[in-house]
C-alpha cells in the first residue's frame, strides 16, 4: 500500500467541563487544553512551531492574538474558520504543512463558552439583513438553524421514505455511548437534561417537536467546551509518550444553495472520496466513525455521502443498533456521546479528532477492541444551505 505517514496526532485534551459558569474565558480554555495536550504528547510550548485556531476569544487578528497569548513564535499561523469543520481543515492543512517542512509540531486549539453566554444557537431565529448578499436574501424568512437541518430531513423522507424511527437510531446510539462516558453524563447533568439514561427509539420520536420533522432528542446540546490536538512530524512522533495516530488522508469541500440543487447530498460527497482515495481505504473498512452530530439527519446524510451506504439507503442501513460500539455490521459512531449527548459548544470538529485518536490508542470509554481505522468528518455551517466539510482518515500505528 502506498499509504503516506507524513504526520500524526500525538497529543490530545478535551476540557472536562461543559458548564464553566463564567469562571474561565475561551482564551484561557484554549491555553489550558494546549498545555495538557502537549503534556499528553511529552512535548512543551517550545516545541510548537505551527498554530491552528478557530473559535472565540481571539478577535479580528486571531492568529496574532493566539501566538502572543501562548508566548510562541510560530512559523505557520492558520486561522481557517469554517465553523464546525474548522479543525478537520486544520488537521488536513497541518499534515500538508508538516510534509512540506514548514513546521514540525502543529497545535490546534478551541474554546467556547456558548452555554454560559446563553447563546440560543438552534432556535435563535436569524438576525436582520446583513451586508453579506446571501444573508440579505434569507433573513426575512425566520429560518432557525434547526429548521435548516429539518428541511434536509423532510426532503430525505420525501425522496427516500426515510422515517423518524430510523433517524432516532443516531440519537439512541450516541446516548448509549454517552452513558458510558462520565464526562458526558456530568455534561447532561450540568446542562439540566431531564431523565438522563439510555434512550429508546420511542423516547426520541415521542420527544417534543422543535422543527418538523426533528424532535428535541435529535438536536445537539449547547455546552461550553474546549480542546486541543497536537499533530507532529514522523520524527517527532516517534519520540512522543503515546503511540502516534497517523493522518492517512484528508478532503475539504464546500456546498451552498444552487437553483435546482439537491439538499440531501452534502459537501461530504466531495471531501469523502478525496480523503478515502488518499488513504487507500474504503468506508467499509472503518472501525470508528466520528461524524458531526449536530442533528440526527446530519449523521444520516453524511454516512451516505461518505460511502457507508448509497444515497437514500441510510435509513434502512442504520437500523438495528449497529452503530453501537459493541455491535457488528457498521462502524462505532461517536463513541464519546457526540454533540447530541456529550459536547457541542458550537464548533465540535476538534472533539471528532480527539475521540478518534482515543479509540486508535485504546483510551475510549466505549472502546472498540480492534480499532485500527477511523474517519472524522466535520460539517461546518448549515447542512440545508451553505456549509463546509472536512474529512480526515486516521490510522493506528
Amino acid at each position, binding site marked *: 500500500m502506498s499509504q503516506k505517514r507524513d504526520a500524526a496526532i500525538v497529543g490530545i485534551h478535551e476540557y472536562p467541563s461543559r458548564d464553566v459558569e463564567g469562571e474561565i474565558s475561551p482564551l484561557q480554555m484554549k491555553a489550558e487544553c494546549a498545555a495538557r495536550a502537549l503534556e499528553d504528547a511529552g512535548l512543551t510550548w517550545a516545541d510548537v512551531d505551527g498554530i491552528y485556531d478557530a473559535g472565540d476569544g481571539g478577535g479580528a487578528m486571531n492568529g496574532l492574538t493566539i501566538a502572543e497569548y501562548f508566548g510562541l513564535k510560530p512559523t505557520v499561523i492558520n486561522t481557517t474558520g469554517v465553523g464546525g469543520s474548522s479543525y478537520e481543515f486544520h488537521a488536513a492543512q497541518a499534515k500538508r504543512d508538516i510534509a512540506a517542512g514548514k513546521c514540525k509540531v502543529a497545535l490546534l486549539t478551541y474554546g467556547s463558552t456558548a452555554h454560559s453566554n446563553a447563546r440560543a444557537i438552534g432556535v435563535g431565529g436569524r438576525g436582520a439583513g446583513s451586508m453579506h*448578499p446571501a444573508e440579505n436574501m434569507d433573513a426575512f424568512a425566520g429560518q432557525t438553524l434547526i*429548521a435548516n437541518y429539518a428541511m434536509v430531513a423532510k*426532503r430525505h423522507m420525501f425522496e427516500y421514505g426515510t422515517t423518524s424511527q430510523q433517524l432516532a437510531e443516531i440519537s439512541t446510539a450516541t446516548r448509549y455511548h454517552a452513558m458510558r462516558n462520565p464526562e458526558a453524563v456530568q455534561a447532561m447533568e450540568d446542562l439540566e437534561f431531564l431523565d438522563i439514561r439510555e434512550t429508546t427509539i420511542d423516547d426520541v420520536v415521542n420527544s417534543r417537536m422543535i422543527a418538523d420533522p426533528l424532535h428535541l432528542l435529535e438536536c445537539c446540546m449547547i455546552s461550553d467546551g474546549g480542546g486541543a490536538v497536537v499533530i507532529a512530524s514522523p520524527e517527532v512522533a516517534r519520540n512522543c509518550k503515546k503511540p502516534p495516530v497517523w493522518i492517512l488522508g484528508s478532503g475539504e469541500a464546500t456546498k451552498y444553495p444552487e437553483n435546482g440543487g439537491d439538499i440531501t447530498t452534502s459537501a461530504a460527497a466531495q471531501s469523502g472520496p478525496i480523503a478515502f482515495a488518499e488513504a487507500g481505504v474504503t468506508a467499509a473498512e472503518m472501525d470508528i466513525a466520528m461524524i458531526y452530530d449536530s442533528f440526527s439527519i446530519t449523521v444520516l446524510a453524511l454516512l451516505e455521502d461518505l460511502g457507508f451506504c448509497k444515497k437514500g439507503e441510510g435509513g434502512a442501513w442504520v437500523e438495528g443498533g449497529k452503530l453501537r460500539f459493541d455491535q457488528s455490521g457498521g462502524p462505532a459512531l461517536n463513541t464519546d456521546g457526540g454533540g447530541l449527548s456529550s459536547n457541542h459548544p458550537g464548533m465540535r470538529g476538534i472533539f471528532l479528532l480527539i475521540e478518534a485518536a482515543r479509540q486508535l490508542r485504546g483510551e475510549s470509554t466505549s472502546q472498540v477492541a480492534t480499532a485500527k481505522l477511523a474517519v472524522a468528518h466535520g460539517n461546518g455551517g448549515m447542512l440545508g444551505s451553505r456549509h463546509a466539510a472536512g474529512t480526515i482518515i486516521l490510522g493506528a500505528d
Partner: protein
Amino acid sequence: MSEVKKVATRPLPKAEEFDTKEFWAGTKDKEFRYQQCTDCNKVIFYPRRHCTGCTNGKLEWKVASGDATVYSYSVVRQSYHPFFRNLVPYAVAWIDLDEGPRILSNVIKVAAEDVEIGMKLKLEWEEHEELNIPLFSPR
C-alpha cells in the same frame, strides 16, 4: 415611568446591499426580479454583479411569474426571535420558482402542518414602507 413598548417586526433586508439592491428595489413595484446571463444562459439567484457560469457574461434582469413549487420545508415550533416567537408554528421553505430561482421564504394562508413538498404556490407580497417581502401561498 411608562415603558414604550416596541412591537417586534419581521427582520428586513438592507435595501442598499450592493449585490441584492436591484432585487429589493423591484419589490417596491411587486416585481420578483432575477438575473440570466445573455452569453451562457445561466440563471443567477441570489443576485450578483458577475456571472458564475462564464467569466465575461452579461447579466440581464428578468421578472418571474411568481408561480413556484415547494422544494422542502419545515414547521418552526420554537423560536426565541422577538418577531418569529409570536408566529409559531409557521412554515419556512425552500421554494423553486418556475423560471429557476430557489428562494428561502414562508408559505402563508395555509396551516403550516398542511404544507407539502411539491405544493404549487403563487407569490404574495407582504407590504412594508421601504420595500415588500416575497412570501408564497398555495394556488
